[in-house]
């Protein structure tokens, strides 16, 4: 006769242990309800299979704990990572462009390049009508100083945004290194744990998943699961960032080994960083490969799009791509046009072609002529370009300077020295001026409505001074509003992806509580069964 009493006790003890395991798992799930990246676990209960052939009547062998399942969906994790990368890029762009657009404020409460241009030309028109008035002369100088001040402030603020973007790229690269190091370490632990013991290293996988998501926020990475439980993390060009237990450390440098000339300068006159990998550190000298353009998406990708990327062969900051560079180029082009076109008109054509007696055809209140080509607007470091000094745009950079918008100033300080007069006679032996002559100012005032082509680096645009400023405002506005839309879209799809992931993988307390009740009851029942089994045995014993 088969002893079923033993079976009762056996199965009940097994059931106790199994329900306990489930309750313990529930406790773990509840404990981690707010842990970021935690994937809920489910205990897989299965019927216990008897060893060998039991024969006779098979009542069943009770329950046992099969596996602990991590409820996760690789595709949802992947789309969450992609959404995280998009969100990282869109947010950082929206944030920085938000600060850029404040330089082009439309409220009229702060001086912008546009508003100072208008008041400058108004002052010139006023002086044209009344050239011997010292007050109006001072007014022209004051408005010109406001204009150059606005140009300087705008340009310098854009330049410092670019520097900030560059520095954030440097610190984000360090973050990437720290993340990829931790991922490599977790890779090692997962493959060791799962290879030797055959168990799922759930906690390590959760941690790694979270780190991968954080890594995706910095840059677009592609992640491939390997058979040994590790993941292969690579950049968009296939550069392997993490292989098994190895992480490759990226670096930023302003002096990469592949650069042949001077590295590209930043808008502020500094140098832009490259993201590089030293593939042979043991060689003693640096052997860099350039990864700058291979990092797309994420905060670094977003920052690179703003900051711009310049080829090593190009030393001018205005040859770079990038939103900030394009806007700064427009400001710089306006500054250069003031230094060249405006000054040319101000000095007037050369009245005497023969060296060295060059004579400008404009004169100030005392009949003196400006002697320098940079007679009205000047920039520290710019000197007379020789002869009469009618500067050409090409002369500007000859002095080794690059960013004139950051240093443009007004050369005239004495109101009497403003050359309002112009001798319009053709080639007089000696130009003569009368103090009340405002013809030079009339000619300068006409520049307000003259359309010109501004050309710099890889950018070129046409318009009047104020018109080209307004066009820049439109440009900034479009960049900002599309960044804002992109940020909203990215936030939405991130939220959706996270929501879908949480729908599957996150802990629901209601569910856990219900389970708790269910398994607690089962545990109580199993305990009761042990008592019943014991009583059955007692009955037999008593009969003896």
């Amino acid at each position, binding site marked *: 006769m088969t002893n079923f009493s033993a079976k009762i006790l056996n199965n009940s003890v097994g059931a106790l242990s199994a329900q306990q395991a489930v309750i313990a798992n529930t406790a773990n799930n509840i404990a981690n309800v707010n842990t970021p990246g935690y994937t809920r676990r489910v205990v897989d209960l299965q019927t216990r299979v008897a060893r060998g052939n039991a024969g006779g009547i098979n009542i069943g062998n009770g329950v046992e704990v099969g596996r602990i399942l991590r409820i996760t969906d690789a595709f949802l994790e992947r789309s969450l990572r992609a959404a995280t990368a998009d969100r990282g890029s869109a947010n950082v762009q929206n944030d920085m462009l938000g600060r850029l657009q404040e330089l082009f404020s439309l409220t009229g409460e702060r001086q912008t390049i546009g508003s100072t241009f208008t008041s400058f030309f108004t002052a010139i028109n006023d002086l044209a009508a009344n050239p011997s008035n010292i007050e109006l002369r001072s007014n022209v100088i004051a408005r010109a100083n406001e204009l150059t001040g606005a140009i300087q402030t705008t340009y310098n603020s854009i330049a410092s945004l670019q520097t900030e973007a560059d520095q954030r790229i440097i610190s984000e690269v360090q973050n990437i290194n720290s993340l990829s190091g931790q991922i490599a370490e977790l890779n090692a632990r997962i493959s060791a744990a799962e290879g030797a013991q055959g168990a799922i290293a759930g906690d390590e996988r959760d941690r790694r998943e979270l780190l991968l998501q954080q890594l995706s926020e910095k840059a677009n990475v592609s992640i491939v699961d390997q058979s040994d439980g590790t993941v292969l993390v690579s950049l968009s060009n296939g550069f392997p960032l993490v292989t098994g237990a190895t992480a490759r450390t990226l670096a930023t440098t302003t002096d990469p080994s592949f650069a042949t000339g001077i590295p590209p300068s930043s808008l502020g006159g500094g140098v832009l960083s490259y993201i590089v990998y030293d593939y042979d550190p043991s060689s003693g000298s640096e052997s860099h490969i350039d990864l700058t353009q291979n990092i797309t998406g994420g905060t670094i990708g977003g920052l690179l799009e703003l900051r711009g990327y310049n080829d090593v062969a190009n030393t001018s900051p205005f040859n770079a791509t990038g939103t900030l560079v394009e806007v700064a180029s427009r400001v710089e082009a306006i500054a250069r046009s003031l230094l060249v076109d405006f000054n040319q008109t101000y000095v007037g054509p050369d009245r005497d072609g023969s060296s060295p007696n060059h004579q400008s055809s404009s004169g100030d209140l005392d009949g003196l002529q400006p002697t320098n080509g940079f007679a009205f607007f000047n920039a520290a470091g710019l000197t007379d370009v020789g002869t009469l000094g009618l500067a050409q745009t090409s002369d500007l950079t000859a002095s080794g300077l690059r960013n004139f918008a950051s240093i443009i100033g007004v050369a005239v300080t004495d109101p009497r020295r403003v050359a309002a007069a112009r001798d319009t006679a053709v080639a007089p032996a000696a130009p003569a001026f*009368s*103090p009340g002559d*405002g013809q030079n100012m009339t000619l300068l005032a006409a520049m307000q409505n003259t359309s010109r082509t501004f050309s710099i680096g890889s950018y070129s645009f046409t318009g009047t001074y104020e018109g080209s400023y307004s066009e820049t405002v439109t440009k900034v506005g479009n960049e900002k509003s599309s960044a804002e839309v992109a940020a909203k879209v990215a936030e939405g799809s991130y939220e959706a992806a996270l929501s879908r992931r949480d729908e599957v993988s996150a802990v629901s*307390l209601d569910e856990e509580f219900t389970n708790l009740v269910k398994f607690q009851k089962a545990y109580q029942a199993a305990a009761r069964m042990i008592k019943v089994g014991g009583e059955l045995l007692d009955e037999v014993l008593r009969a003896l």
Partner: protein
Amino acid sequence: MTRVSESQLTRRIVLDIVNNHNDVVKYGEEISSGYKVKNPGDSDQGGTISEFRNTIERIKGYKARLAPTRSFLTHQDDIMAQAIDVVNRARELASQGANETISPAERETISREVFALRDQMVSLANSTYQGRYVYGGNDDDDPPFDAGTPYAVPSSGSAQTRYVFDNETGSTTTRSVNVADNISVRLTSNGNTIFSGAISGLDRLGRALAGFRTNPTNPPSTAAPDGTGTAYTFPTDYEEQTQAIEGSIDLLNSAMNDRFLPERTDLGARLSRLDTVQSMLDATSQSAEDSLNSLQNADSVNSITKFQQAQFALQASLQISSRVLNLSVLDFL
């Protein structure tokens, strides 16, 4: 069946509250600042708004120049009116003097008033406006007419003094002012052209009445008198003196009809042009203000309505959140 986890629920609620809060802040700011567009990114019309602002500022500059321009031209109109009075009085005196019933001594008496009229004409030609000679062109240093080489005869007195136009650099240049984009109005006229004829005519008339010839003797020749005129002898030259007086009347008529009257008409035309420009500027700036207003300024009724909606939404989401977050199966177990 959709699973709803705790983290989903809280995040969703927090997100809703944050969004509603942002709306409240946004519309609140619209109401308090009065602007719905503050920065270029707030609208796709940023460049247009900036253009309108420039236009309005520029027109402000033009308008500020209109009033002084108008008063300057009006001032010149007054000068012309006075000049015309002077010439009219001189013509009356000339007809009196040309009457052959009066004696040379009486003619000499008349000449004194004529010289006074001449001096008045010179001071009209040399008049200043805000520190600048009205008819001096760009030459602000010297008056347009000053006493040049005196006549040889007589050796003293008003009849000897000769006024000539001071020909220096810029003294005949006219000035103009920009009163609108690509519209400029001439401010001044050439003093030589306007006044030389009248002053010369008065000179000749005065000298003839006072009893002195002026070379060249043949008006209406407008060539500058060279100062070699000699005295008439009476009674032989009485007839010649009368002819000289009548000749100078021709000069005065010509100054009146060819210079002062056309100049006055021209001033009137320029003044009415200013009025046209003024109303054009007013219209342009008004429409720019209107456009700017509709593009940039917050519609307060709209903003307040939206603010209230946002406020209700925020309150609702806060209330809902407290209900939903408190809902748990735990309370029922």
